């Protein structure tokens, strides 16, 4: 939290990423897209959704790290990216926890 004020030269100018990194990321994204489609047709029981999400998260991470240069960005950007994801998880997670537990404790009979 105590970054120097005003003069933050370290991340000032744009980082030039080698071309082959971009092409490698692109290839990985394409392969992962193909994989997610193929896996969807395999019966993994309850695992289908987690696998699909894991692939999507991997793809998103690749885009964020390389295409969006977060790997080469200052720590504030990293903190905010993580914060965004964290609050999204909080919103989905806590709301979902209500719906998942609606049947856990039944309402007393007299109230129904």
């Amino acid at each position, binding site marked *: *939290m*105590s970054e120097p*004020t*005003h003069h*933050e030269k370290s991340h000032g100018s744009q980082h030039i990423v080698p071309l082959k990194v971009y092409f490698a990321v692109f290839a990985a994204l394409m392969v992962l897209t193909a994989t997610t489609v193929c896996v969807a047709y395999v019966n993994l029981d309850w695992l289908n959704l987690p696998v699909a999400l894991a692939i999507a998260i991997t793809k998103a991470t690749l885009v964020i790290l390389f295409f969006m240069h977060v790997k080469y960005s200052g720590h*504030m950007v990293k903190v905010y990216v993580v*914060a*965004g994801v964290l*609050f999204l998880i*909080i*919103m989905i997670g*806590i*709301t979902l*926890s*209500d*719906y*998942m*537990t*609606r*049947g*856990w*404790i039944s*309402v007393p009979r007299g109230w129904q």
Partner: protein
Amino acid sequence: MSTSNPSPNDRRQHYLNAAYGLRSWLLTVDHKRIALLYLGSITFFFFIGGSFAVMIRMNLLTPDGSFLQAETYNKFFTMHGLVMIFFFLIPSIPAVLGNFLIPMMVGAKDLAFPRLNLLSWYLYIIGGVMALSAAALGGVDTGWTFYTPYSSTYSNGNVVIMGVGAFVAGFSSILTGLNFIVTIHKMRCPGLTWFRLPLFVWAMYATSVIQILGTPVIAITLLLLAAERIFHVGIFDPRIGGDPVLFQHFFWFYSHPAVYIMILPAMGVISELVATFSRKRIFGYNLVAFSSVAIAMLSFLVWGHHLFVSGQSIYAGLVFSVLSFMVAIPSAIKVFNWTATFYRGSISYDTPMMYCFGFIGLFTMGGVTGLLLASLAVDVHLHDTYFVIAHFHYIMVGGAVMGYLGGMHFWWPKITGRMYPEIWARFAAVIIFVGFNLTFFPQFMLGYLGMPRRYHAYPAEFQVLNVMSTAGASILGLGYLIPMIYFIWSMRYGKPAPPNPWGATGLEWRTPSPPPTENFEEIPVVTEEAYDFEALARRDAAALRNEGELQNG
């Protein structure tokens, strides 16, 4: 520099006389001028929202509620809530005082994105015009909460206009928060580290985080609501398996943190006032700073306490109840640290300090009654009664508005370069405090006795307390008119203000009142901690010596 006294007929250039004419205001990108644009517009909305409150209180004078029809009454309390929350409280301290002060407090020439700042004001105005046209076209009667399915299926079509108005105003709030965060991160002057920042800046930072993370959720929710209203089908529609309680989840995911958008900036103002008028560094600076951030984070984990009786699962109710209690910890840290600062401070009772005392007392009342409401079992009894109304008015009016008025009095000399009449100001502060308590304390009792909110009529045995409340409201209304009048009066006739009338620390007091267009004659360099009154005294003494030497030599 802080002691140089400008003579009244000083023709110095400052932000107010830098340019004249309507254009110079409507197209300005100066954060100080934009703050004044906001000041004018939120004052307008405050009195609009206030006039709705007058109608509500008039109607509740008699048990049969004969002053207004039930439908009209519903519209008035809805519009009161919407206008006050979206168009007064949320922009109040951030958009007026925050806009004016943050660049100066961090030693910058302007906010990071001045044109975006102007855009925010225009968005706010567009949202406000939509809200007023919804009112003019017949009003909205859903309550400010827009609960489905009533809002999406049965109520009138003005819900769409009002919802989109709040949506647009929400973007104004988002962009303001974004601007503040970037400014605080990137525009601090040399030497101004995070732990040398005034606590107001910390509070505004925490507020901005909430604005950034929470407001988009209400935006998409209102959009979905408007779509459901227009297309007669949507995701909250029970006929196709939609769950209206989901709307409540979405709504409160924003609207509970929104309460902290209103109160956190006020807490920031109070921290400044406590330090300045006790002439002491805030006790436990780091804890007060971090408690702002903690409140911002916790605010996102407690929204379900609005859904205790809405059909949410009992497990979720328990979790939300426990989490809600936890917000009391950082809030209490602040209150205890403020009071600890008073201890052995040299306290002066200028008007801002009177509002500050009012805030601490009323906020504590509001906070403690909040704990009652956070208790799952107690809330089943108190939910949707006047107890809730009284509770959140103690926080929002007793807390946020007191903080806002305290801040306005504190920084008024800096904003206008003029002092307000101190006697009148103290008188008004007392009137407001008395009027406020007379208005809202009886409502705690009414709620405890079981009077539900949002009804235009009530059983006759509640009349005495309701008459007290209405009487208090008229005193409160008068109390708000007095500052309005003497502030306007002081702009022309007030005593010229020196750069630092209160002997306060902080960079904004090191520049003349009113400040020049780019805030500082040269970018300041900070070498001391926040609220270092000894360093201030040393600097003043040195400046005096210099002046003396210049005159003698």
